[in-house]
């Protein structure tokens, strides 16, 4: 321990003798570490943002939409037929044990009017289950009830974007909006969710009871009054997703009388899987950025090795003298290793500070959330020490195994 402190002191003295050179040598490590910290921070920020968006669409969601059918050899696209009904939704909720809730949905675009303001938005006819499935909460007012759905009440719930566009800063709850000449009472306003993972504004929406939506706003399907645009199915828990998917597929095939060997007339999408792919790509980006930044750390290490080699050659006589007065192989080795590690660690610490500053600046000016984890700081610190050991070893070894006679005579 005593010797280590002494070596560190000798190393610090040697480094202060050539201040400019030491600073320039450290610069490589400083830039490398700062780049790693900032880039990993940017990547982690992106991942965190996507995770938050995935949270916002609701947990354990399976989306069932009408599928393609082929009729006499002509294949029609997905959604070409309205094969799903409210009865399907009720059956799934009742008969599939892995399913927690089902919300049938009808969708359309409508013009919503309040006095002399109007706004075009997506109208969704839903049941109260939709609120729990999508994990909505109310900013003001209440969601409409099952009774409202049964009675086809003229009640509407506004998304925050719609509310702002029609009412400004006023609370719309209890006010009346007009859709297709039908007055609706605003039951409440949803708490904003922000963007969906696919970039849509999740607050630009107006929710109506599914019955009212069909009868008064979107118009019922003439062939099948009970047809719906899609079903949102929520599994009991994340582990039950596959099970739920399987159960509802079997049930729907049975209900739709699809023979074995025939294609489904509906399609099932696991939303979490879709967005998990985006999350993965963000993580890949994060790793890629980190990897590119690590290259500069390695370049910095090579810079240290270069300068240490020069330093060893310059101090050949000093090394010879130290050997003559009794320095053993490992004394010289540790002296130069400590010097290299001191350089790289000092560079690492400065780099960490610089990297933290850079990621703060990025999130402030580029409006890009960054997350610097303590782990990445620790890793950068340890890694810069390792760079010092790795790239310092060869020069230190060269010094330690010098022939003392030649070293003493070196000019």
């Amino acid at each position: 321990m005593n010797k280590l402190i002494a070596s560190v002191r000798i190393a610090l003295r040697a480094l202060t003798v050539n201040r400019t050179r030491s600073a320039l040598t450290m610069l490589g490590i400083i830039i490398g570490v700062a780049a790693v910290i900032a880039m990993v921070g940017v990547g982690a920020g992106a991942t965190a943002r996507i995770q938050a968006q995935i949270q916002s669409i609701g947990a354990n969601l399976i989306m069932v939409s009408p599928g393609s059918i082929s009729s006499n050899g002509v294949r029609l696209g997905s959604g070409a037929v309205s094969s799903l009904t409210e009865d399907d939704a009720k059956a799934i909720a009742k008969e599939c044990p892995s399913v927690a809730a089902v919300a049938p949905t009808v969708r359309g675009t409508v013009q919503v009017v309040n006095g002399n303001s109007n706004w075009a938005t997506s109208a969704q006819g839903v049941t109260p289950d939709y609120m729990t499935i999508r994990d909505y909460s109310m900013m003001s007012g209440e969601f409409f009830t099952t009774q409202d759905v049964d009675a086809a009440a003229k009640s509407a719930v506004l998304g925050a974007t719609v509310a702002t566009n029609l009412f400004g800063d006023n609370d719309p709850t209890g006010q009346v909006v007009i859709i297709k000449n039908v007055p609706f009472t605003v039951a409440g306003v949803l708490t904003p969710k922000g963007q969906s993972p696919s970039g849509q504004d999740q607050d630009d929406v107006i929710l109506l009871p599914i019955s009212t939506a069909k009868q008064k706003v979107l118009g019922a399907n003439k062939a099948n009054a009970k047809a719906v645009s899609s079903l949102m199915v929520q599994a009991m828990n994340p582990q039950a997703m596959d099970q739920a998917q399987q159960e509802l597929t079997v049930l729907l095939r049975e209900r739709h009388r699809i023979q074995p060997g025939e294609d489904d007339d509906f399609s099932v999408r696991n939303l979490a899987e879709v967005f998990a792919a985006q999350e993965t790509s963000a993580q890949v980006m994060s790793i890629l950025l980190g990897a590119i930044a690590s290259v500069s750390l390695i370049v910095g290490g090579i810079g240290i090795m270069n300068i240490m080699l020069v330093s060893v050659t310059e101090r050949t006589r000093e090394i010879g003298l130290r050997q003559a007065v009794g320095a053993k192989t490992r004394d010289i080795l540790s002296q130069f290793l400590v010097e290299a590690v001191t350089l790289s660690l000092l560079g690492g610490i400065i780099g960490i500070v610089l990297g933290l500053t850079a990621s703060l600046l990025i999130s402030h000016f580029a409006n890009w959330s960054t997350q610097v984890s303590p782990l990445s700081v620790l890793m950068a610190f340890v890694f810069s020490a390792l760079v010092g050991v790795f790239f310092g070893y060869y020069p230190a070894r060269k010094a330690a195994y010098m022939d003392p006679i030649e070293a003493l005579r070196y000019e």
Partner: protein
Amino acid sequence: MAAVIEIKDLVKDYKLGQVPVHVLKGISFEIERGDFVTIMGPSGSGKSTLMNILGCLDKPTSGIYKLDGISVGDLNRDQLAEIRNKKIGFVFQQFNLLARTSAAENVELPLMYTDTPAPQRHQRAMKALLSVGLAGREDHQPSQLSGGQQQRVAIARSMANDPKIILADEPTGALDSRTSIEIMAIFQRLNREQKITMIVVTHDPDVAAYSNRNIHFKDGKLQLDERIAQPRDAAKDLEQLPAEQPEAVAAA
């Protein structure tokens, strides 16, 4: 008196390409504890090679070298380093002090490679500096000292770890004649008061006159080995010289 150095049939060959060069061709002699020996000889006579072997910086090709009873030929690199640390002090022609390092820390250098705790290291360095007449200069760096003072720091360094022998290779080669006598006076005093065996390589017959024994080398062999009955006293010679000039700071 027992011999501190025993050399028997010492041979050293170098390979210069394919041709072996015989530098030392079978040398035998002993140096007694507390003796003051000068070694002389023309360039290429093998005296530098002998110094390297005596200083445990190099190993003989064959023959026996015993330092303080230890046969050096069997030791490895690190064991040799330990022997140098404990038993030998080196003084060089070019002083070989660490630049930008205080006199005290230069003197402490051999003790850095021992287990001596820091306060004791400093204490011993101060004592060594005092005995070479440099008390009060311990914080000076080599560039702030004259050539003679630098060599005195080097001598203090050589004796810091209480060696059995001090090996000096042309210690006065870079100094003027007055400073040379000062250095020899210090050597004589260390030899007399601390019973350190002194071995000095020199070209200068005047320097040899201060020793008890003079060994001449030629062509890798002992040519002459004479006892000096009445060595000159360097301290007395200094008194004879005119009053001391202010020392000029060494240009180097």
